[in-house]
């Protein structure tokens, strides 16, 4: 065991872990405050969107693409003077959060855009036919209908930001990345480096699993041919698309016999 490992002890690693989680969550949250509206804007103002504004779409699209195409490690270095000008410092957690936000917001914007674009065009057309205005479509159709996909996107974004935060640790701020690169590497404390790796893997796994579970639980769609219960609905059942009205009238009795119903499904397909 290296001397550094001993010096850090449980508290040292716990602190670095908590710092990584804290930095990631704060940056993700703020990046979403910027990225979510941008993503919706990119989708809504696109040609064929609910409010086509080509010039605005183009401008935002180009800015997002430029920021997305710069590798984070270079963007970080380039942002040092910007950070100094805006928040007064280029080191420490504040500077790191700033850089993470700049890097993550455009990424999140694209994630949100692709989630919202998945919403069925027909459903949006139905909302328009009901006289829903642009805001109502955004709040009551785009966001709720894209919810499962948005959660999956948030999980992927958070994991990416954990990676960025470890990189950002090399020049400023704290967390497991900083611990591994600025403290453990110079003293060649391999055990510290590897424990940092393990801890990051654990954080990523937990976020991934919890997020995916949440996305699945909140999705109200049930797919045909799979005996999956919709979350929160007791005695739900899968019904074949072509079943006639008579069959469906007996649904209350069928719902208690889910297995039989699924078996019938298979026969019909």
């Amino acid at each position, binding site marked *: 065991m290296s001397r550094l490992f001993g010096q850090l002890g449980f508290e040292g690693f716990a602190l670095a872990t908590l710092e990584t989680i804290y930095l990631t969550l704060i940056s993700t949250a703020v990046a979403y405050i910027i990225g979510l509206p941008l993503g919706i804007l990119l989708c809504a103002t696109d040609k064929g969107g609910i409010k086509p504004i080509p010039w605005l779409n183009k401008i935002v699209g180009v800015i997002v693409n430029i920021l997305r195409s710069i590798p984070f490690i270079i963007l970080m270095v380039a942002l040092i003077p910007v950070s100094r000008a805006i928040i007064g410092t280029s080191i420490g957690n504040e500077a790191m959060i700033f850089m993470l936000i700049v890097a993550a917001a455009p990424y999140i914007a694209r994630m949100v855009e692709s989630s919202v674009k998945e919403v*069925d065009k027909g459903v949006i057309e139905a909302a328009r036919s009901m006289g829903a205005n642009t805001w109502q479509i955004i709040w009551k159709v785009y966001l709720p209908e894209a919810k499962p996909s948005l959660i999956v996107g948030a999980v992927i974004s958070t994991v990416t930001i954990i990676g960025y935060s470890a990189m950002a640790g090399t020049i400023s701020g704290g967390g497991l990345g900083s611990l591994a690169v600025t403290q453990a590497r110079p003293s060649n404390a391999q055990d510290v480096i590897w424990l940092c790796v393990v801890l990051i893997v654990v954080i990523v796994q937990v976020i991934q699993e919890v997020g995916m579970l949440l996305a699945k639980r909140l999705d109200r769609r049930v797919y045909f041919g799979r005996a999956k219960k919709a979350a929160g609905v007791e005695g739900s059942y899968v019904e074949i698309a072509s079943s*006639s*009205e008579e069959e469906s009238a007996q649904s209350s009795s069928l719902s208690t016999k889910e297995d039989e119903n699924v078996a019938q499904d298979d026969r019909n397909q």
Partner: protein
Amino acid sequence: MIEIKNLTKVYPSKSGDTLALDGIDLTIPDGAIFGIIGLSGAGKSTLVRCINMLERPTSGSVVIDGEDITRVKQKRLNLLRKNIGMIFQNFNLLEQRTVAQNVRFPLDIAPKKSKRGENGSPVPYRVDKAKREARVKELLELVELSDKANSYPSQLSGGQKQRVAIARALALRPKYLLCDEATSALDPTTTKSILSLLKDINEKLGVTVIVITHEMKVVESICTDVAVISNSKIAETGKVTDVFSTPKSDIAKELIIPDLIRAIESEGGKKLRLIFAGDEADAPVISGLALECGVKANILYADTKNIDGKSFGHMVIAVSEEDGQLEAAKAYLLRHNVRFEEEL
């Protein structure tokens, strides 16, 4: 009343413009079940989408109750759209909302009564949550889905989904209901029940229903009026009983009586097309021809349809021109007030 005047829709593209609608003139009277029938690609879907401006027409006007909706501002259009319910082939329900929440959607987005009072809404203003829930309950009873209120769309069959869509479209008590191929994704039994529901809605609630379809059966079973659309133009329009008994345009004949056309085009003898409209359909015409005039008539085609409780039908007979048989037959038919046309 909906008056469509000289409506044209052009889809521009690099490989040349596509003319989807070409000078459509159509009047849809209040209280009608108006069928718009045509083959796929004829422009009927574009036409119905122009009625609530989901598609912007290139030129022409759509006047609904005296107001040209092609010229109104977006805000006013959103308000007017609430008076025109619409249902779709693919149902288009919100997948993440329950049945009850889907039906409540139009109520949730209904116009708020402005502080200055009246803001010219053609539909009820937004009411408090309890009243909205009560309205949802009422609508689910109407479409016989009260027991599915808390189910999600993916748990329903196609027919049930369309019922939810109908309940949703009627939430704000609209004057008009547009149905875009509403039964095309459904099996025959379910189609029947959806059509009878639409007829009920028309009769009991006085909603003017506009039905877009490519299926003759749909028009036949519920419509009062029909417009036949072909190659982006209206080929023929009128009361269903008239258009069905005496279709004038080729496309209407092709859609309504395809087998008859084939019968007429077949070889052998002079052909007479007898038209039954109303009670004459019960008269024993063919036996009369044979017994009274000695005419040997060969039946090539016969079909009667029940429209609005009356029998309508066509019969194609081939009659020999020898021995004045044709003349005798014509004279007999004239005597008995049977409408007929000579087909070449």
